């Protein structure tokens, strides 16, 4: 311990730890799938966001890179060493020109970045319809504890933890929640938007290519939040029709009771339904208004979804749906309970 600070042993240990960490990082960069969803967009909104990420990174790098280099040079050049020749000027503590420069440079860069940001903020506003020759398809999304339910009102079908959309068509997602708030995120197609009870949000997106896209809940909503993954399957128009027909003919309908059992906290498999109760989405959005589903005075006429929660029911809910999340949640585009159209 009495050795000088910065002993040889320390230098070696620091070097070895650094090299090993770097090697591990390099391994990790190649060992993973390497799929940087955000940087690998498949739709116009995500592309715009990717472009903005690149532009803003370059703009900030204009300041950051030289500053870092200057920092290293100054620290190296003026470190105290016997016989150091570098100039020593202890009273050099004010210079109008220099200070004007470094107030000025960030101001200019931030001004440019602000202009770019504001333009993109309006251009990529999620509730603004996408320009397209095709009519947008509306999909209604409800986040539950801990699953996603998708209603397709045009086709009157519903799915859980998976949604199929036609490619090259703007999709108008209308989103709400019947549980603690969550956030709906499909990184390759568009940035996220919160799903909140008692209100409907709008998020436009479009898939330019067929494929299965990763989606997840992004805002923490309780115990099994980590299981709130879903697939977005973008398919050709013909496949889309075929898929709709298949769901219509092969799946069971979703009744109010089915929805209520889905709303019980617990995880769920991918499922599809040949129909769903009329206006269910609107009823969920207006649930807390007078006369809504949650209105006590209304209980006689409506069957109210379960809102009381306890651990027992949660477990029951899971077993009701025959869930074994870990083995069934393979994201291969195949449904588990009911065979969905495969779109790989």
């Amino acid at each position: 311990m009495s050795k000088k600070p910065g002993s040889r042993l320390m230098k070696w240990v620091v070097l070895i730890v650094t090299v090993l960490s770097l090697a591990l990082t390099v391994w990790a960069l190649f060992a993973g799938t390497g799929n940087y969803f955000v940087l690998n967009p498949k739709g116009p909104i995500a592309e715009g966001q990717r472009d903005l990420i690149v532009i803003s990174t370059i703009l900030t790098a204009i300041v950051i890179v030289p500053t870092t280099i200057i920092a290293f040079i100054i620290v190296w050049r003026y470190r105290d060493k016997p016989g150091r020749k570098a100039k020593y000027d202890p009273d050099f503590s004010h210079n109008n020109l220099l200070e004007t420069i470094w107030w000025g440079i960030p101001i200019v860069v931030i001004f440019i970045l602000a202009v770019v940001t504001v333009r993109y903020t309006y251009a990529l506003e999620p509730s603004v319809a996408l320009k397209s020759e095709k009519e947008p398809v509306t999909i209604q999304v409800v986040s539950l504890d801990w699953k996603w339910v998708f209603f397709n009102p045009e086709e009157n079908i519903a799915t859980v933890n998976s949604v199929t959309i036609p490619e090259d068509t703007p999709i108008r997602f209308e989103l709400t929640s019947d549980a603690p708030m969550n956030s709906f995120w499909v990184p390759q197609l568009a940035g996220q938007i919160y799903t909140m009870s008692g209100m409907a949000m709008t998020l436009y997106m479009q898939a330019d290519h067929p494929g299965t896209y990763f989606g997840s809940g992004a805002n923490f909503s309780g115990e099994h939040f980590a299981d709130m993954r879903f697939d977005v399957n973008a398919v050709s128009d013909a496949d889309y029709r075929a898929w709709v027909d298949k769901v219509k003919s092969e799946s069971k309908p979703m009744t109010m009771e089915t929805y209520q059992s889905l709303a019980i906290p617990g995880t769920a498999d991918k499922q599809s339904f040949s129909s769903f109760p009329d206006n269910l989405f609107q009823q969920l959005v207006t649930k807390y208004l007078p006369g809504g589903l949650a209105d006590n005075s209304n209980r006689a006429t409506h069957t109210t979804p379960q809102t009381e929660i306890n651990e027992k029911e949660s477990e029951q809910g899971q077993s009701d749906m025959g869930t074994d999340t870990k083995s069934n949640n393979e994201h291969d585009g195949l449904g588990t309970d009911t065979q969905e159209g495969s779109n790989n």
Partner: protein
Amino acid sequence: MLENIKEFASEFFVTGDPLIYGADVSIALVTIAIVAGLTYFKKWKWLWRNWLTTVDHKKIGIMYILAAIIMMFRGGVDALMMRTQLAIPNFEFLHPEHYNQVFTTHGVVMILFMAMPFMFGLFNVVVPLQIGARDVAFPFLNSLSFWLFFLGAMLFNLSFVIGGSPDAGWLSYPPLSELQFNPGPGQNFYIWGIQISGIGSLATGINFLVTIIKMRAPGMTMMKMPMFTWSVFATCVIIIFAFPILTVTLALLFLDRFGGGHFFTLDGGGNPMMYINLIWMWGHPEVYIVILPAFGIFSEIVSVFSRKKLFGYTSMVFAMMIIAFVSFFTWAHHFFTMGSGADVNAFFAISTMLIAIPTGVKIFNWLFTMYRGRIRFDLPMLWTVAFIPAFIVGGMTGVLLAVAPADFQYHNSYFLIAHFHQVLIGGVVFGYFAGMYYWWPKMFGFKLNETLGRWSFWFWNIGFYVCFMPQYLLGLMGMTRRVSTFDWDTGWGPLNVVSTVGAYLMGIAFVFQAIQIAYSFKYREKDTTGDIWDAHTLEWTIPSPAPEYNFAITPVVDSRDPLWVEKQRRAAGKLPKKDAKPKYEPIHMPSNSGIPIVFSTFFFIAGFGFTFHWVWMAVLGLAGVLACMVVRSMNDDEGFYIPAEEVEKTEASLRGTL
């Protein structure tokens, strides 16, 4: 009867997890050891007289820092548990429910019970000494602030073994934190732990603002204040405006949970978005509350260890006050994705980016303080130099996050996690470490061991980058925060392994620091100069550790670096080698008081009662609080005087020469 007790105990105590039983046993053993030790060495009276009832800002500061280091240990263990759970896909080390408690506690403990007390500790130790004052403006209030913080923190930590920890995230967004989704006592612990310590924080803000405005040494105009004092000033202004918002927000949440209110519930016209706005109106300024003092610390250290005056003092002051002001207009950038629309998002994007301008200016000023200097790399300076690249990258990603439309992709992802850990560790923690190493000799009269400090420094720094750099990439790969596990098919596994390795390297670094402190105590070499770093400001003109009255003679200041100027004048022969024998006067001191700790204990009892809905206990606690206020109001203890002869004797023995 026995059945009833059994049933009560199984709900009251946290059960079912071997980790918790292990913790229970160790907590019990440590408590027994402390009590037995104090009894055996007959130290109870010493503890009560010298520490628990003290109103001396230096001792209160040391207690704050000690508490902060213990809390850093707790928050750090939480962090390692999380990183262990995330090291391997589908790992079953922590059950999701337990994981949620761990990340919630980690966040609350690190921000509110580690960063805040560490900061208040440094305020307490340094500010009065730096401005040439004998104590803070309100010494009694200062002690009360500490005990409110401490017992609030203890109440929060109690949830670990009693009742169950909160699990709705460090800011507890409703509706998840409402009774409907979170019926257990954990969330009540959260509310009352933070409420009680929050009152202490607000009082500290007021106390130090008044101290700085009213108690500066003669000649020290505002624009001659040391930069750390300026940063404390800016911070206190933010605290005074921000903390009441926190208190109100949590009070409303409490009314929802306890009194059947509907402020943030789903039904009854409640609106959770209101909570999210309110909590961030406090939460964002809070970030600047903890970072500004770190900026102040760096400013002090960079000039002392470059042997130069601080570059661009005026710019620095303006930059800091601009940050303090603008910090109140950026809160909505925490929820660009909540659908406020383009107008609102554009405004908050720009206001957030504006912060980058003064921050950038500060970086340049620090760099040019080093320019044409002679840089010594003692521990405080090492941490300062390490801060610069960490903060440059963290600041850059902060600007990227401010770009509202792009934030739709970063939000809630590991990109965000990486960013705020980079600024909070690279900025705040590095800053407070630098401050701790720098002012440690002033607190205790000896330096911390340099070699062990360097071991710790390198492990911290390597671990820091190894842990958080991969998280930027994980964010771009779609990994969201707060997931308790993930599947193999995500491809997030390998980078998570790297991140976990980094976390453990930081854990090793912390162990080195613990050893460093113990070792340095054992083999300490007393500093007899009082100015161990060849520093510039007033706190180094008095002996280390400072005598209880700080300054025997109130100093008179005529420059920004009074000690440095004095040393230069002395060297140039413009001052006599030895000062004329000073004429000492009796010094007025405040008396110790047991009221703050008793007052805070009653508050703790009230909080505990509210947590378990035991109204009798809450009423009892609040009655005790009221009684303490009455007793204090009736108290006409005016303090005491240290006679001039005693001051003279103390000074002579401390300075040797005088």
